[in-house]
């Protein structure tokens, strides 16, 4: 009897060749359709790789070809759809009800405890010197591209929480800068310092944070505050945020606080000023990206499906001094990073912006300089807010209390606080920084610049 040949028939092999060849050919042709290639990724907030310019040097050392490789993969048509499919597949890699994303490999320094760092009993003492070299200021004119968040992300119950890692040298550099600013302008203005914690510090159990090897952010804030010059007034927001942590004070899919979170900080500031804070009910309110806002944690977590299932809404409260009804009424001025200035709105309608950028509705987002004149006040009162992006949600509460409100993003300005105080004649300076920025080594050099 003739033995049957094992394995599929020649027909099956032929069909297989045609099927595989067709898919390979289709994807190859797709790759050749240059006009379909995207140039920008809105989700990743970056321009995709451009086709490299040819030079003999880049040809000879291979960088030209590696540029072509990068361009081909980075701008492949249907790239974002393929990435989404890949992320969906990765959602099934394991049990992901609670996740850790990032793998930053960051290590926290121990936070000195009150009474053991030689400063608690002696408010005039300088922070203990650290082994880290003192950072040198950046040269004038440097364009700063500085991070907002660079730790790991812990995702649980469809909400993301960034982890905070204390840096002794970073904290000491920040404290020195604040004290230096006070030395420079303390006789002319009241200086306030506000450090905003991440949602993890406010919402999560301390034991969870400790088990991840991250730092207790409230201890870091305490360390900063007790080492500040006694002439500086800290705006301590941690406790009040913790008291309100059942409310919607932090986004689930973004590393920022909501404007409601910043409202409780505003109330703390009012206590220090002796003001009666405005009640929320006094403001006109609106909302953006209703149940559709997926912020930075979503992007950073490779588009976690847990976060996608629980998107945010950006609620905004209009200052009483602005016209909430007319979207064309420009109430503020902003100077962009490219040097162009525009009239803008402090709560700006962002409907035509990508879904991932709704936090930018506040205070014209991160610009080198912005200002608002309150037409209802005529006492010459003025405040300067030096801030990172957390300050954006906070500023709208302030503008109803001052005739002039100025704000600068310390990552994008080349000005010094001393110069700005001189120029704008402000009475109050609020230096706001998220704790991870305040103690992060990335920002140290910028602080030295602005504090000089």
């Amino acid at each position, binding site marked *: 009897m003739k033995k049957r040949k094992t394995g599929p028939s020649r027909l099956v092999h032929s069909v297989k060749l045609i099927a595989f060849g067709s898919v390979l050919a289709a994807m190859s042709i797709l790759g050749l359709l240059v006009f379909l290639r995207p140039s920008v990724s809105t989700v990743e907030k970056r321009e995709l790789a451009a086709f490299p310019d040819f030079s003999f040097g880049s040809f000879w050392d291979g960088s030209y070809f590696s540029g072509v490789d990068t361009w081909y993969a980075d701008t492949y048509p249907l790239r974002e759809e393929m990435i989404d499919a890949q992320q969906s597949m990765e959602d099934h890699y394991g049990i992901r009800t609670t996740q850790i994303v990032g*793998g930053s490999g960051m290590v926290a320094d121990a936070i000195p405890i009150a009474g053991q760092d030689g400063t608690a009993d002696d408010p005039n003492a300088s922070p203990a010197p650290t082994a880290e070299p003192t950072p040198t200021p950046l040269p004038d004119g440097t364009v700063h591209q500085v991070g*907002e968040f660079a730790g790991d992300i812990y995702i649980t119950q469809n909400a993301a929480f960034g982890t905070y890692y204390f840096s002794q040298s970073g904290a000491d550099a920040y404290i020195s800068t604040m004290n230096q600013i006070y030395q420079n302008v303390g006789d002319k203005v009241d200086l306030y310092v506000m450090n905003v914690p991440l949602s993890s510090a406010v919402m999560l159990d301390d034991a969870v944070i400790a088990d991840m090897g991250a730092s207790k952010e409230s201890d870091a804030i305490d360390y900063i505050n007790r080492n500040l010059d006694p002439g500086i007034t800290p705006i301590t927001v941690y406790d009040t945020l913790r008291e309100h942590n059942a409310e919607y004070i932090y986004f689930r899919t973004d590393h920022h606080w909501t404007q409601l979170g910043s409202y409780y900080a505003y109330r703390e500031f009012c206590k220090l000023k002796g003001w009666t804070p405005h009640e929320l009910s006094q403001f006109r309110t609106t909302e953006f990206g209703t149940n559709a806002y997926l912020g930075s944690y979503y992007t950073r977590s490779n588009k976690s499906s847990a976060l996608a299932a629980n998107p945010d809404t950006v609620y905004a409260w209009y200052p009483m001094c602005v016209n909430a009804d007319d979207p064309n009424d420009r109430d503020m001025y902003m100077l962009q990073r490219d040097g162009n200035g525009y009239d803008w709105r402090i709560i700006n309608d962002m409907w035509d912006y990508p879904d991932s950028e709704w936090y930018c509705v506040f205070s014209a987002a991160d610009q080198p300089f912005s200002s608002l004149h309150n037409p209802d006040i005529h006492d010459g009162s003025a405040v300067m807010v030096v801030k990172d992006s957390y300050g954006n949600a906070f500023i709208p509460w302030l503008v109803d209390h001052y005739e002039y409100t100025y704000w600068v993003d310390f990552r994008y300005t080349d000005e010094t606080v001393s110069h700005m105080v001189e120029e704008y004649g402000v009475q109050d300076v609020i230096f706001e920084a998220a704790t991870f920025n305040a103690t992060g080594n990335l920002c140290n050099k910028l602080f030295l610049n602005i504090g000089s």
Partner: protein
Amino acid sequence: MVFSSMLFIFLFLPANLLSQIFLPTPKAKNIAMLAFSLVFYSWAGPRYLLLLLAMVFICWGGALLIEMNDEPGMRKMWLWVTVGLCLLILGIFKYLGFLLENIRGLFGVPQVVPQIVLPIGISFYTFQLISYVADVYRGQVRAQKRYWMLLLYASLFHQCIAGPIVRYKDVNQDLRRRRTTPEEVSAGISRFAVGLAKKAVLANGCAAVADQLLLMDQAALAAVPAMGVLLGAVVFTLQIYLDFSAYSDMAIGMGLMCGLHYRENFNYPYVSGSITEFWRRWHISLSSFFRDYVYIPLGGSRCGMGRQMVNLFVVWFLTGMWHGASWNFILWGLYFGLLLGVERFVLGKDGQKFLPQVVRHGGVLILVTFSWVIFKYTDMGLLGTAIKGLFGLNHNGFSSTTVSLLFKNNLFFLIFSVIACTPLGKWLRGGLRAMGENGGLFGAIEAVWEVVHPVVLLVLAAMALVGDSYNPFLYFQF
């Protein structure tokens, strides 16, 4: 260029396959294949191409001189001159910086150590050329008279930069007479697709996990608890096999699609019951190279125990050195030399059989996993920290939330990766084939599987490769 790049898969490879399908003669196919190979090799910078051309020229001329001479002394002389020149060039480009660095460490001179860039694939093609010259000397193959054909052998993009180390005698016939059948092309497609998915999905996925645990910063690594280092070591063990064997799979698959037959380079090494068996299954082309061209010429195991131990030491010192100019690779090689010595001279075959099978397999996995930790860290400080961490000596606890979450978040993926390192898939495939022999339902399932699986794997790999380019701007600009 690497196989696991979008440009390679969707531009270079289809163009190459078209040339191999439509060009009429073996010579035309070979000329096209040479052109593709030189472009492939030049992708990292054409300057390295000059070195490849020069080394092929030396070996081409050397082999011809060996073959032309009948006098044994002259033949041996030309063998040593040719092999010596190859090793000299390899030594200069791969080991001179390392050597001078160590001399400077001991004696303070030279002040400046030249930073010599390692040409891509030099270790692979040097060994291929040495094997060719040695085989000509031994009379096992005729010297290639056409320079470009030897250049094609050495530069063949399937295996030039990441192996396997193909012997000239294994591909010479194929290069001269290309024959492809639908069955072989079909097998090549499957093998290539499996390799591509293994690399893009599994190996890269394992790397993403391992890199979060086996950190490259001293303080950060010291902060990883014992279970973290252990998990990192296990996942890195999976990664290195999946990555390396995937390249061999792709090379073998592309070879089959073009009528070239390369030998297997991996044979499920992690199922081995002894270290000796492991090295019969791991990077077979390298271990057989050292066996045939170093160990046996030194006397192999047909000599006294002392000499055998010296031979073993030499071979494993060189094996370690081959993997990189760094002390950790030498340590890694000697570690395996020591284990093999213990198996051969202390345990012996009877001693090994005395151990229960589960102990033998478990022992091999533990010893091999540990070896990859040595392999991972070229920095001896980091290596020391990792080894201490493995034994919980960094005083940072047993585990942490981060480690347990990382494990849970990737549990199914890791289980699948473990299975991919075993012959289970091959057995299942064999079972399906046996059941489908007589047609019927299983025959239909097998036919569908045969057609669908490479397409699915290709798409999954493309998704993963594009996903790797996903690079959210970490420093959000608002």
